[in-house]
């Protein structure tokens, strides 16, 4: 038995691959947070007046709020005054095209495996790249504009489409929704904005890559997706950060609004720096993601592959308001070494005949703790609502933990709610079986983990499924140079 644990320990102690720091000229404001900082951020971004008011209101509410403590994660208190709330690559002038972007920056994205140039030319994926706090490049914008699709950074949206931002910002996640959301509302520096007009099926994947580069900064991006009647969009975000000994805070907000018959697929491959083998450093990932199925027969689907971060606190939810609307949540969360993840979803059924599906796969290795926390609420108005939840945990070794916290709040008796949960271990017998067929243990673990996560990986767009599959293997293996 101990031998088995040794083997697993060996193969599960891989190194983080994206931990380098780019040497980019940056502008960073002094650490600390007060009203003046909020004003400064807004001024730097040359924002319309309403935006500053919105931020200040959020900030004042945040000051009165308390950090939540109910999650199954443990960390020393965050000192919000020791963080810088704005860092941006220095721009000499307004950029006209990608060719004018700092070459070091382009190299950064190359090393991340996201060549903005290549992406632009070869694949049908539009990319918005956000480094530290600011969007540095959005590709394919003009092609999308021909269809009326707006895909740009939040800062640009505030300049070019202030009326749209004003109308929808905070409509799904109110400014002071929770502690981290309120903080984000006050200080968010950028993010992506995406608007799909009535009846348009967005012909390409929209994708944003977030990268934290600067030290002692927090990243607070805010993403807003609006899908008008009968429209469709598939959106993907990816994230990485350098290895640093101190913890860094990431508190993002994502809002999705789907009107009648609209469908939004949102996929995340989250690979923030998880800290080292001894639990030093890593990103605190405190994120609020919510979708509102406002229209009839609308559908919002969250898919997440969570491999990074020291601490993850994240519950992508769907409010099923429109009749016959559908919410889905597919998640793979991997924790290794000393990582802690408390993640899951909330499905709030309000409309009639609303349906939700939850598929959660938790994989724990090392000394990590992995919790699924999910709420299914069926309101009185949600006649004939249905939910099915499947929560599976896979343990590698015997020093890690898997926990499941399903909450049900049901006020409508003709609803059907089902929950299934399993916990399994990669045992010595399975490893031996694989070894006997010629697979070494690393390969066996990777094969088993990918098999375990299959249902979720299948939800990802093809090109990202392959990436995610590799990422899962890397997060669990010692094969990274």
């Amino acid at each position, binding site marked *: *038995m101990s*031998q088995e644990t040794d083997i697993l320990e060996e193969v599960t102690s891989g190194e983080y691959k994206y931990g380098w720091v780019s040497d980019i000229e940056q502008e960073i404001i002094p650490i600390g947070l007060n009203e003046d900082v909020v004003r400064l951020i807004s001024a730097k971004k040359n924002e319309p007046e309403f935006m500053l008011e919105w931020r200040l209101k959020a900030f004042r509410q945040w000051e009165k709020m308390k950090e939540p403590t109910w999650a199954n994660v443990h960390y020393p208190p965050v000192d919000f005054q020791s963080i810088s709330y704005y860092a941006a690559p220095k721009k000499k002038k307004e950029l006209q095209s990608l060719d004018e972007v700092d070459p070091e920056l382009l190299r950064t994205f190359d090393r991340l495996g996201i060549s903005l140039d290549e992406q632009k030319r070869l694949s049908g994926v539009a990319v918005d790249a956000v480094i530290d706090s600011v969007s540095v490049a959005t590709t394919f914008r003009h092609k999308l504009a021909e269809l009326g699709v707006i895909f740009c950074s939040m800062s640009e949206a505030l300049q070019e489409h202030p009326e749209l931002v004003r109308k929808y910002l905070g409509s799904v996640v109110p400014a002071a929704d929770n502690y981290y959301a309120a903080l984000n509302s006050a200080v968010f520096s950028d993010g992506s904005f995406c608007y799909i007009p009535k009846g348009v099926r967005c012909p390409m994947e929209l994708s944003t890559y977030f990268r934290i580069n600067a030290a002692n900064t927090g990243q607070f991006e805010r993403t807003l997706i609006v899908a008008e009647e009968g429209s469709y969009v598939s959106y993907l975000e990816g994230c990485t950060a350098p290895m640093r000994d101190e913890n860094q805070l990431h508190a993002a907000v994502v809002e999705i609004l789907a009107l009648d018959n609209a469908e939004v697929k949102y996929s995340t491959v989250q690979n923030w720096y998880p800290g080292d083998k001894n639990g030093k450093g890593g990103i605190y990932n405190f994120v609020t993601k919510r979708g509102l199925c406002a229209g009839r027969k609308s559908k919002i689907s969250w898919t997440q592959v969570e491999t990074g971060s020291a601490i993850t606190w994240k519950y992508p939810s769907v409010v099923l308001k429109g009749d016959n609307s559908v919410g889905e949540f597919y998640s793979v969360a991997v924790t290794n070494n000393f990582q802690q993840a408390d993640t899951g979803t909330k499905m709030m059924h309000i409309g009639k005949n609303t349906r939700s599906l939850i598929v959660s796969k938790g994989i724990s290795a090392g000394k990590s703790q992995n919790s699924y926390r999910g709420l299914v609420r069926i309101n009185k108005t949600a006649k004939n609502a249905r939910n099915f939840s499947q929560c599976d945990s896979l343990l590698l070794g015997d020093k890690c933990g898997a926990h499941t916290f399903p909450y049900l709040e049901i006020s409508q008796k003709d609803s059907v709610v089902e929950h299934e949960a399993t916990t399994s271990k990669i045992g010595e017998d399975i490893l*031996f079986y694989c070894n006997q067929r010629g*697979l070494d243990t690393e390969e066996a673990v990777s094969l088993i983990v990918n*098999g375990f996560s*299959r*249902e979720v990986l299948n939800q990802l767009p093809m090109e990202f499924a392959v990436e995610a599959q590799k990422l899962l293997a890397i997060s669990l293996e010692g094969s990274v140079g």
Partner: protein
Amino acid sequence: MLQIKNLHASVDGNEILKGVDLEIKAGEVHAIMGPNGSGKSTLASVLAGREDYDVTEGSITFEGQDLLELAAEERAREGIFLAFQYPVEIPGVSTVNFLKTALNEIRKHRGQDSIDAIDFLQMMRQKMSLVEIDEKLIKRSLNEGFSGGEKKRNEIFQMAMLEPKFAVLDETDSGLDIDALRIVAGGVNKLRSLNNSFLVITHYQRLLEYIVPDYVHVLSGGKIVKSGGKDLALELEEKGYDWVRTELTADAEA
């Protein structure tokens, strides 16, 4: 091809194999019979390189090299195959996918490139018909929800695909219906050649009517206590293991 000399093996400090000697030449089929708990599966596991079995004494040589030096996956790549008595289930991984990974590992070891998708498909078709396995079955998650007999048939299918030099079949016949037994045995016979050899562990003489062995051995109490030709199996079926035991004590007293 394979020489086992004075093999002693224990698990968790309990000695299970207490001095096994066995030599298997290329092209031969050996059968091992013996009472429950006598150490047959233990011998199979030790040959395949399971780590929680400690070899305390003796040696195993495979094609001139010290097998005990090699990890389980290295032995597999060298051409050793074990059809498990209790095959495991791997959710989300199809037999096809699993075999492709395994086959490519073996090829890599031999310095060959990964198999081309079309060649692989062709090879699968051919081996599928050899063991008459349904395509639907091998597209499903490996062994998940398979019936006992389906799992056994899948083991033989994997063997056919990986083309080992030396294969151990641990009670592959138990759980098979009469037709399946005939098909599986037929598959093994078609794979038999002058270059590869088999060690067939079974409780039933019936299997040995289909897969006719060159030698039959009786393993009892961790030792091979009797060896003979294929007729030994018949004799055993008739007289039971007590017969071997009494014969042994008689020998010892004489």
